[in-house]
């Protein structure tokens, strides 16, 4: 294939945001925009290769094991299934490959206007990048650029960590033998998902955190409930502890922590670092392109335009609250539309739903109670325990919470937060409610299927005006 050196659009990155931008730009321009996509590693970026796809595969496999060993209904014996971790992890890697081939490699073949470049890009000036690949360099010129280089695992500076070795959410998928004892440093949401899955597959999992809460930033009572549920399954949480040092002893990894109660040592087989993600801005020479950024990412306006009006950014590399595949893909599409369709589309983070695929799942959209109050407006809220939802009782999965945040004057819904089975499947109701300015009374007026867990949203809306314990099923 003969590649050009002049492009209408040069995209730095090959993940969800990059693909979405390239495809949208191709659709708008009838495939006539010449596009270069530059990156390294497998196509598709974090989500398909080391993020959502493998983690959800592992979660579902672990759920099967858990349901067999913890049957929810009387009369069904508990069995402890034999686990071949090598086969599970091998099939997980096959599933990742299948998704990557189907949704990225094959998709790309149908766009003749997109050229793929292997390597790391850096700006030479406002309209040129250099692509470095194993000692070779190539210069590409572009009129517009979209920076979609994603994010990487943040590795904390801990004495001995590098020498002792550790896993991240990039490398844990390469395991064949699951560790007997695993310590998760940081315990972010990715760590909780992987931790619960491995715990269900037989690993002893301990989360070590400096914070006392399991998940800062989410509704406090929901975070506390999630930690309580994970603890009840056997995960250990050592909170309020700072990791001071890591070292090896007799083939084990030793973690030395410090807390108000003094120093402690913990011996494990493996360490998983899960302390957040950092935007991939290093080495891009953004200064040469007039693109401003900080350690939190690239500055953009709501149209995804950077401080250089011809350069946009999308996805995890952007300085923004969320790092989500769906948001990245949405932003890539917005950037391409604004470049080629003359639109002024904007991203609205208050309408972005997100989820943690622990069991139960946590899903959220919009403001938390404290977040809304910090805007200077006042909220009223209602919290409904999951055991008030009939379907949850039928499922025998009653541990969870529904919380709704509404504006105290307009009664419009501004946030919905759910910890329940399948919460990620129905949080979209909250997105529509917020987007279209619905009040909790609007939700009550619409029938919800009975019995469903999603009915909990309606029950929470009803709890603003009634005592749920004095209502029969399906009342409006």
């Amino acid at each position, binding site marked *: 294939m003969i590649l050009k050196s002049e492009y*209408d659009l040069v995209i730095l990155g090959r993940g969800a945001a990059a693909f979405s931008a390239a495809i949208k730009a191709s659709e*708008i*321009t*009838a495939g*006539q*925009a010449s596009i270069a996509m530059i990156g390294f590693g497998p196509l598709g970026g974090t989500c398909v290769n080391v993020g959502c796809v493998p983690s959800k595969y592992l979660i579902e496999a672990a759920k099967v094991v858990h349901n067999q060993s913890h049957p929810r209904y009387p009369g069904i014996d508990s069995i402890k299934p034999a686990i071949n971790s090598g086969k599970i992890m091998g099939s997980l890697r096959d599933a990742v490959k299948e998704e990557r081939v189907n949704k990225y490699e094959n998709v790309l073949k149908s766009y003749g206007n997109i050229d793929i470049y292997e390597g790391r890009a850096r700006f030479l000036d406002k309209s040129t990048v250099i692509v470095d690949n194993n000692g070779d360099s190539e210069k590409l010129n572009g*009129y517009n650029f979209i920076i979609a280089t994603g994010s990487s695992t943040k590795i904390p500076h801990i004495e001995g960590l590098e020498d002792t070795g550790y896993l991240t959410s990039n490398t844990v998928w390469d395991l064949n033998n699951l560790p007997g004892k695993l310590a998760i440093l940081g315990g972010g949401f990715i760590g909780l998902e992987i931790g619960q899955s491995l715990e269900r597959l037989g690993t002893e999992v301990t989360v070590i955190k400096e914070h006392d809460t399991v998940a800062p930033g989410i509704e406090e009572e929901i975070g506390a409930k999630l930690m309580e549920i994970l603890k009840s399954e056997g995960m250990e949480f050592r909170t309020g502890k700072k990791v001071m040092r890591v070292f090896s002893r007799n083939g084990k990894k030793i973690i030395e922590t410090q807390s108000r109660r003094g120093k402690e040592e913990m011996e494990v087989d493996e360490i998983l670092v899960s302390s957040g993600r950092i935007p991939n801005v290093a080495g891009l020479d953004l200064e040469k392109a007039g693109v401003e950024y900080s350690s939190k990412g690239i500055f953009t306006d709501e149209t995804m335009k950077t401080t250089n009006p011809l350069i946009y950014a999308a996805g995890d590399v952007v300085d923004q609250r969320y790092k989500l595949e769906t948001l990245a893909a949405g932003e890539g599409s917005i950037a391409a539309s604004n*470049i*080629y*369709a*003359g*639109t002024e589309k904007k991203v609205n983070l208050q309408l972005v739903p997100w989820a943690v695929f622990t069991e139960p799942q946590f899903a959220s959209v919009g403001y938390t109670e404290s977040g809304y109050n910090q805007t200077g407006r006042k909220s009223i809220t209602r919290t409904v325990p999951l055991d008030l939802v009939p379907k949850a009782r039928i499922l025998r999965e009653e541990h969870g919470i529904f919380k709704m945040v509404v504006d105290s004057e307009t009664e419009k819904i501004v946030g919905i937060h759910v910890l329940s089975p399948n919460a990620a499947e129905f949080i979209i109701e909250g997105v529509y409610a917020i987007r279209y300015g619905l009040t909790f009374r609007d939700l009550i007026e619409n029938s919800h299927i009975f019995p469903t867990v999603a009915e909990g949203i309606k029950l929470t809306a009803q709890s603003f005006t009634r005592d749920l314990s004095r209502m029969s099923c399906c009342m409006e």
Partner: protein
Amino acid sequence: MVSKKVTMRVFGMTCDDCVRTVSDGLKDGGATEIFVSLKDGTASAVVDDSRMKPEDLSKIPVFGEKSHYKAQVRKVE
């Protein structure tokens, strides 16, 4: 009145009919001295900047939301 020459990248043209449609659209949008290249996917035209911002030439109806053609203003001189 100050005449400005606008050079544009035009997407979506596949035939001579497209060239004619885009040329007519530019004329209807108030441009003169129109030249459209199917081969290069470009157009150049002159606009009176007291009547229209040269940058807005990519927003005239022939390049609008429902149109098959899209344009980017690349140079104003």
